[in-house]
């Protein structure tokens, strides 16, 4: 009994372990990283709690008044109280729409990265660990996938989904279509990275030791090997998150994104784009800045993570 208690007090808490880790140290040492982490966090929270902090609900058509359309930001001469960053062409509060739009962008981003990660990591693990013909097949599929860059895959899947689902149903599945499109086009990177790491890890002696105990391959793959290849995966995931958000925006720009009634950041920019020359810059500039800041912050985090996790660069 006493042993257990001793073990407990010896064992530092997760938090304090994190705080003492090299990773956290290199994090703290880089002010830019701290700032980008804070910005990312703030943006994610803002998106998460959009319904509570947004002054208006832009997704509720009943609350919109077309007469409020294209109001400039509050601080300008023609600005109107209650619309801090002005309104768009439908009279939606730009600030609220950005918050809500970020929800969609982030949701698409996260979901597609998770999908790509799950797919890529699993396939990469299997390819690397099982090897042989399985490996060959998976990697050839990856080659074919690579032939189709992200935008193309997305356009295709979107096209097929539209044709299959029909317009009304499409609106309901558009989120999944986006996630699937973006997710599918990103998995190869994970698979290749993981496969490469697995090829290295699987010959490490701790894996041999696990095999000596007679563990099943799946147990070895997921319990032993996987935790040791997450580093690069995390790095890719972070950078992909930014990329996914931008891809979603780009797809929206190409007209294959979420409907304009529930715009994402990308859709907002696309809409606002039409008002750039006419002087209603706020419709596109604010979402644009938000998107850029979000992507930049996430990218900076990814950059830091890559360098911090790369022992060679330390």
């Amino acid at each position, binding site marked *: 009994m006493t042993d257990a208690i001793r073990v407990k007090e010896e064992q530092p808490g997760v938090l304090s372990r994190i705080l003492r880790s*090299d990773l956290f*140290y*290199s994090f703290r*040492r880089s002010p830019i990283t701290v700032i980008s982490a804070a910005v990312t966090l703030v943006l994610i929270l803002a998106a998460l709690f959009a319904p509570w902090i947004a002054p208006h609900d832009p997704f509720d058509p009943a609350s919109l008044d077309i007469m409020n359309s294209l109001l400039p930001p509050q601080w300008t001469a023609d600005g109107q109280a209650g619309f801090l960053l002005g309104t768009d062409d439908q009279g939606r509060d730009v600030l609220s729409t950005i918050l809500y739009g970020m929800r969609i962008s982030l949701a698409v981003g996260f979901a597609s990265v998770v999908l790509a990660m799950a797919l890529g990591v699993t396939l990469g693990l299997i390819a690397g660990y099982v090897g042989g013909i399985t490996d060959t097949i998976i990697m050839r599929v990856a080659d074919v996938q690579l032939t189709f860059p992200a935008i193309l895959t997305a356009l295709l899947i979107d096209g097929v989904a539209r044709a299959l689902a029909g317009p009304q149903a499409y609106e309901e599945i558009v989120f999944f279509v986006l996630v699937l499109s973006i997710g599918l086009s990103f998995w190869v990177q994970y698979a290749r990275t993981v496969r490469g790491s697995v090829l290295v890890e699987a010959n490490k002696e701790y894996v041999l030791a696990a095999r000596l105990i007679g563990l099943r391959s799946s147990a070895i793959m997921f319990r032993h090997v996987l935790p040791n290849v997450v580093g690069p995966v995390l790095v890719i995931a972070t950078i992909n998150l930014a990329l996914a958000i931008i891809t979603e925006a780009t797809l929206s720009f190409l007209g294959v994104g979420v409907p304009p009634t529930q715009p994402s950041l990308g859709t907002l920019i696309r809409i606002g784009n039409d008002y750039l020359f006419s002087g209603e810059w706020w419709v596109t500039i604010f979402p644009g800045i938000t998107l850029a800041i979000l992507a930049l912050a996430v990218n900076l985090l990814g950059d830091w993570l890559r360098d911090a996790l790369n022992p060679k660069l330390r």
Partner: protein
Amino acid sequence: MTATLSVRNLRVEIPTRHGVLTAIDDLSFDIAPGEVLGVVGESGAGKSITGSAIIGLLDPPGRIAGGEILLGGERIDNLAPPAMRRVRGKRIGMIFQDPLTSLNPLYRVGDQLTQTILTHEKMTARAALDKAERLLVEVGIPAAGARLSSYPHQFSGGMRQRVVIALALAADPELVVADEPTTALDVSVQAQVISLLKRLCKDRGASVMLITHDMGVIAETADRVCVLYAGRLAEIGKVRDVVKHPQHPYTHGLMTAIPSLKGDPDARLEQIPGSMPRLGAIPEGCAFNPRCGFRFERCRAERPAAYPTSRSEASCFLLDAAGAAPPPETAAAARAAGIEVRAGAPTGADA
């Protein structure tokens, strides 16, 4: 006669998040012309850093924080980069541990050789190529002329290390620093390479600083040996003396811990408890004191200097003739271990 290389109170620091680590602390030694000095120590003792410091290639953020390094009597530790570049290769040749990674895989062996030669010597490309071939012949590569146009991966490990030696000797340096030149090689090839290195340097009158953790290699190759412990000098002296009559308790422990082809195979190996401290956690006083069987008060409080004995010099208070005496049992045990305890003795009691 001035020493080929003279290291005076060298101190190398590595600033890290845990504060500034002192990787080399107050290290001094000389290498006489034509002499082979072995530098031994356990992994992390600072052997490679010493070598890098001498050739001026400390990996950042490491830096020389004190002391001086003299080559043929001139200071080289504070030379400007271009001047230092002329020293490297030309006056100090360097050999690294792994021959596989030391050679650029994308360049032919001949190109790497001629490039080095032409960097340091004024001659035609043709002449450089001739010299390159001569070098390869010298290091014992068969069909040297033809091999000049081979890529490194087409050589075996032992061959590659020979090429590396040829590269290090290309400009006939007066000092060769060899950092574990044979660790990556097979046992039977190790001996060939070591003897080749030794012979070539002897022919050229070059001094050698042979860094290794293999006492066996030192014992057979070096004239003198310098034992490092946690970045500090533990003992320095003639090889035979240090191996047969180690004066520092660490050296003593080391020598008895190494299994040998001679002696009683069933005898239990002596073991030094614990392991070498990390650089960030070097104990106060003598760095070795927590593991030392002969430690006494003074060891925990003060850092020993290198004290001369009849055979070698060692950094241990037991040998400090002017220092306070250790407890009698300790002194007795130490004497029993062959250490010439002088502490507390009025004068040299080593007769």
